[in-house]
């Protein structure tokens, strides 16, 4: 029965993959995907409800509602799933059995984070698919209606009307919008993981994560006050600086509202925003590792 075990590797993507897919499986078997049904109901319901409105408004509401719900759902999922994943392993002593194997702590943490990021990606893709389907169906209906109503109009006018419909339906600028939603959720998964490495309970982690979410949306006001104006009051300046340094500027990732309102985003700017988001995700994960590496279990 004695065979030589495989040579130990200092860093193994295979082990990380095993931990990540296990985390994903855990979340899937906790039936977290059921929220997708809620999402489907929401967009179908809103589509049906908005039938009598002019088509601009129908598209507007469908996009707002779908993207708003996607944003909320992915963020909630990121916070709740990550907040429970580490404390649960500690409480059940499963963590001991894993770390008693030749698994470096960085791999364990990375695996858990990737598992959540995977879950978020899957959810985002599924919700986007439902959203795209709803949008395409609505577009199809509106086009058919326009053709019917303008059957006797000159060809040029009909074409212009149809162009108008297409412009209000799916636009490629929605893609960066959806990506920014995912990015924000990824930042929160990483941030929540960091919180849970030193938090004493999941509730604490969740509450702090929520607070950061709200402060993050007004951080830019503090930052602009701090960097932009001279303050005689040192206390106030220190306070503003702390807010600006400690919290992420989440408003930068709120591209969706502008995109739905028809303001296209430039590629270069989008790439920079994604870069910043990735930096946040990485730094939070790194700090989580630093704390976890020295944690006494």
């Amino acid at each position: 029965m004695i065979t030589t075990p495989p040579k130990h590797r200092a860093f193994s993507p295979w082990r990380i993959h095993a931990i990540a897919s296990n985390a994903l499986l855990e979340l899937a078997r906790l039936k977290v995907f059921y929220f997708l049904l809620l999402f489907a109901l929401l967009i179908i319901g809103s589509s049906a409800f908005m039938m009598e409105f002019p088509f601009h408004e129908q598209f507007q509401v469908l996009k707002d509602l779908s993207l708003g719900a996607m944003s909320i759902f992915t963020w909630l999922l990121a916070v709740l799933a990550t907040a429970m994943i580490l404390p649960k392993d500690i409480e059940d002593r499963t963590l001991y059995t894993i770390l008693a194997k030749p698994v470096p702590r960085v791999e364990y943490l990375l695996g858990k984070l990737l598992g959540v990021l995977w879950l978020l990606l899957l959810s985002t893709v599924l919700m986007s698919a439902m959203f795209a389907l709803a949008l395409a169906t609505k577009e199809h209906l509106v086009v058919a209606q326009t053709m019917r109503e303008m059957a006797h109009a000159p060809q040029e006018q009909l074409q212009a009307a149809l162009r108008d419909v297409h412009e209000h339906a799916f636009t490629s600028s929605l893609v960066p919008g959806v990506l920014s939603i995912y990015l924000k959720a990824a930042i929160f998964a990483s941030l929540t993981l960091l919180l849970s490495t030193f938090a004493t309970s999941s509730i604490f982690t969740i509450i702090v994560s929520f607070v950061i979410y709200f402060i993050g949306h007004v951080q830019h006001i503090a930052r602009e006050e701090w960097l932009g104006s001279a303050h005689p009051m040192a206390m106030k300046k220190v306070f503003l600086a702390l807010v600006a340094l400690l919290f992420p500027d989440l408003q930068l990732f709120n591209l969706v509202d502008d995109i739905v309102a028809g303001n296209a985003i430039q590629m270069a700017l989008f790439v920079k925003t994604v870069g910043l988001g990735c930096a946040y995700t990485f730094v939070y994960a790194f700090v989580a590792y630093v704390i976890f590496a020295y944690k006494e279990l």
Partner: protein
Amino acid sequence: MADSLVPAISIRNLTKVYPIPFKRERVVAVRNLSLHVEPGQVYGLLGPNGSGKSTTMKIILGLVSPTEGTTTIFGRDSSEVESREQVGFLPENPYFYKFLTGEETLFFYGKICGLRGAKLRERTRELLALVGLEGARDRRLGGYSKGMLQRIGLAQALVQEPRLLVLDEPTAGVDPAGSREIRDLILNFKTRGITVMLCSHLLEQVQEICDRIGILHQGKLVREGRLEELISIENQTELILENASPDLLRQIGALVSGSDAKLIAQHQPQRTLERFFLEVTGKEK
């Protein structure tokens, strides 16, 4: 093999102090502990609750870092991840992942030990057979009994074929039949040359399977040595006879009274309650 000279576990001058948050006091969990476990032994680490057993075990496994001193596993420092290639660990009252089946559990632990493909499947099959859980391979752990959980725990501990097993209260909360199965498994491991370190306060069980024991009390090792040496009463001898006639017993009594020795007790040995229970419930092997 040179390996046989290297102790399976070597603990030298180990001290662990826990600070109490927001207070200046500190708790000394382990105090200047030194002990060695030779390869192939079954070592029992005994002690009341809070004596420092769990802390010692966590330090051996690298889950907690020592304040002073070192621990090694087959010569490798416990702080190195590689040292854990040679260890299998079963914590007290483990839950594992309830959402996984028995087979998936072993797949998971195999994967994080670097096993894959046919080798992983083969090893999983082998271990399920070893711990007698082939029939429950596709059931989720959420539906496992306490004894089954403990057995799947042993299987996961063995997944990468370690030379050392560290078991924390392996039979706590398990019924006598299950407990006996686990005890038999441990003896089985011993015949395969696996070193076992066992933490327990079920003394009777320790007595049955351990070669050597150490007793911890308030973070200090108070006694250590081979089991027989520690518990035998050196100036007494026990004779157990079968089918002895009253006449024979009288003769022995006469011989004793004619010597320097003194007869302290004479009684019929009793079955242990455990053995009786197993006979009645028909689980005696």
